[in-house]
């Protein structure tokens, strides 16, 4: 890889890595898996798209990350099914899923944990849409691309997620 591209990618990752990690940990609630998901997404972007216009890296990176997170959930689900078939096995996936571990809680402040805990009560698509739209400030169009869903679905998920979160966090009118 040429030095100029490497520097540009380094700058892009510096700007994106903390947000990407927080997004991954908000959805997976697992520090080590969140780090791994971010690293794998960086690696894929470097391997497949490093020659592309740097303007394209943002939407592509988040699309890769969201696909990886979806894949992570699929593997968790698969483990649960296997555990159902082999009840003598200890269900580590399930126990890791319930709540942020003590170690993870130390890494996030109370206010953020409160928001994440509310967020995790929503369906997966609503969580992803809310994070992309409200926090990353992606447009409806960019979010639709990153999540591989239609723009109308983004609008619906975003509105529902906002309403639900306001209710859970006690921010409703009246």
């Amino acid at each position, binding site marked *: *890889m040429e030095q100029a591209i*490497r520097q540009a*990618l*380094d700058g892009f*990752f*510096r700007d994106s*890595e*903390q*947000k990407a*990690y*927080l997004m991954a940990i908000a959805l997976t609630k697992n*520090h080590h898996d969140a*780090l791994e998901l*971010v*690293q794998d997404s*960086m*690696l894929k*972007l*470097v*391997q*497949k798209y490093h020659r592309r216009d740097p303007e*394209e890296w943002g*939407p*592509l990176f988040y*699309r890769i990350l969201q*696909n990886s997170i*979806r*894949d992570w*959930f*699929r593997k968790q*689900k*698969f483990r*649960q*099914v*296997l555990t*159902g*078939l082999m009840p003598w096995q200890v269900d580590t996936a399930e126990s890791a899923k319930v709540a942020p571990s003590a170690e993870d809680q*130390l*890494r*996030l*402040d109370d*206010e*953020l944990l409160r*928001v994440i805990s509310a967020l995790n009560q929503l369906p997966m698509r609503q969580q992803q849409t*809310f994070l992309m*739209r*409200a*926090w990353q*400030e992606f447009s409806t*169009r960019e979010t639709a*691309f990153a999540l*591989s869903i239609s723009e109308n679905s983004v609008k619906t998920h975003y*509105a529902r997620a*906002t*309403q639900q*979160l*306001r209710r859970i966090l006690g*921010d409703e*009118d009246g």
Partner: protein
Amino acid sequence: MDKDRQFQQETKNTFDRHRLDDSTRNALRSARMQALDGPARSRIPRWIPATSFACLLLIMVGFLLNRSEDPSELPQMTAEELALIASEDELELLEELEFYIWFDEDKNV
């Protein structure tokens, strides 16, 4: 600013205010360096994990069908969960094509 927009802004601020601890920031820096330097090449061909997964899924379904005649004994899964497990997301070519269509349209807006 309406109440929803205000709430969205406050939530964004909560995320923006959060500062990661040194250990996580170092881990991310190290992940970035490793990604930029390229991965250690795996000796396992890429098709092996996918094929193994498909075989395991088939064995599991076969086992399930033989194991129990009473459907209530099977692990309960929704249609969404089944789709999640069965889907294969390595549609990279499609991903690229979709991206260029989207990016082209976006530039023309």
